[in-house]
């Protein structure tokens, strides 16, 4: 179960869900917001974003709705569901456990052996 003990794989999904926890957003907004908040560290490609978002929708963690303020550009907004919120909480906990473990190894450096 190496994949479960390393949450790096699911971290992008976690970041997206974190954004949606605060408000509903459409894809372009999410990429911009992620870029801004991470000081341009996370430059998510749109081509990665949509399959990921649709996968989350599939699992029922997010839902989508259309907003047609501008008829030429109907926007698909994503909304974090209740299950999604629970999943996000679990992922966050998993992540901080992992981060603490990495920190301990990097900073500790000595053992009794």
């Amino acid at each position, binding site marked *: 179960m190496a994949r479960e003990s390393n949450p790096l794989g699911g971290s992008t999904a976690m970041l997206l869900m974190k954004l949606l926890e605060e408000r509903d957003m459409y894809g*372009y907004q999410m990429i911009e917001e992620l870029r801004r908040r991470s000081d341009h560290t996370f430059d998510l*490609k*749109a081509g990665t974003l949509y*399959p990921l978002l*649709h996968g989350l929708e599939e699992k029922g963690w997010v839902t989508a*709705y*259309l907003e047609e303020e501008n008829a030429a550009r*109907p926007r*698909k907004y994503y909304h974090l569901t209740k299950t999604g919120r629970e999943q996000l909480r679990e992922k966050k906990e998993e992540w901080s456990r992992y981060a603490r473990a990495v920190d301990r190894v990097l900073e500790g450096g000595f053992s009794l052996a």
Partner: protein
Amino acid sequence: MPENRNKIEEYVAEVCEQIRWKRAKEGLAMELRTHLLDQQDACLAEGMTEEEAQAESVRQMGDPVEVGTQLDRVHRPKPQWDLMLLVFGLVVIGLVLQGVLMMEVPYDDVGRVYAMRRSAAGAVLGGVLMLGIYWLDYTILGRRAPWICGLWAGVAAISIPFSHRINGRLYNTYYLLLLAPVCIALLVYGMRGKGWKGLLICWTGIGIFAIEGAVVVSFSMIMLIVFTGNLLILAAVWRGWLGVPKGAATGCTLALPLAPILWMLLNSAYLSDRLTIALHPELDPLGKGFMTIALRKLLRGARWMGRGDTAPWKIPNAYDDHFFTWVIHLLGWAAGLALVAALVLLLAVALRRCFRQKGMLGFLLSLAAVLTLGTEAASYVIYNLGFGFFGALSLPFLSYGGRYMVVNLALAGLLMSVFREEHLPQAQKRETPRLRRKWITLREDGAVVILPPWVKKAAQ
């Protein structure tokens, strides 16, 4: 400009080429196109030329083939082999059991051949219809939803003079009305955000179908229409579809089905008949209570497995209205329970998938189909267990009836068609919250204002 436009379109087209599910393409293309246009605007704002902006947007999106392949993996039709196999199995078991029953029941050979032919024809025709509907795009029903409902109510009304009465019942209209719940689902779907007016139209629709049910003379049909219709409304109200306050709308919707029950109470002759049949059949053992007594006798003599003790005398319509009792009599309670278990499994799986639907049209249509099949089965089993308060509709896919089989298989096809497209990228427009007109409002300075809402509106 056209060249720039082509770059975005070229990219979107290339992504779509990777997606095998034709119907998924439109929604995906729309989302990607909007994103690319947003990106292009941002680049233009940074001072790029249109061509540069275009190239940059496409570059940021990533490799179209890879994106398309990944999206293709998420959006695929979901074949419904399990449900199809279950339905097919039930139909085959039903045909075999009907054949066995026909051999048991004293019947002339001509009648037997005729009945068996009807059953087989119903199964074949229904099977073709089921597959046809399964492959069909059910969302076309959503485009003119309320009109389709009205049209069907009209067709049912027109069919009344062309229906022949068997035992006092108009049979052609009767089978058309089995699709009333599906039509009501379409009506409810069409009333999105229409508030109380929409709710009133839905109730009117249910009322019209229920009156047609009364003309047909089938209390079970009226109950089917009123019961499923109101459950569909409730489901829509609870998903915020109609834009009415949930509590009040639920109260009204629950109170409304009392109308036919009230009608029955007022119609005391009918009520006493049904009560006699269901509760005290011994009061009229050779008339109204005859069937109940005969069914109960048959069940009392039934064994856990194998043929029961009671000699089954003089039960007409053995494979028609009393199929279930006969199966229990001939093969034992175990066989009867197994049939019910298989049907319950089918309906439970369907109901679970129904509640997973993201789109409202798919949700309401599949719910209508499950509720129709479920009500039919419940009425049939209860009646066959000797509680004839309501007449039996049918035991879906199992009991005799060519036209029943066709309608029920069509409903199964509709269910599977909805579930098959579960992964279609669809997003509905968001419900715009209706402003509730309030009589009492709190002003900013803390004063409470009580005024009719239209006066307030005029003052603004």
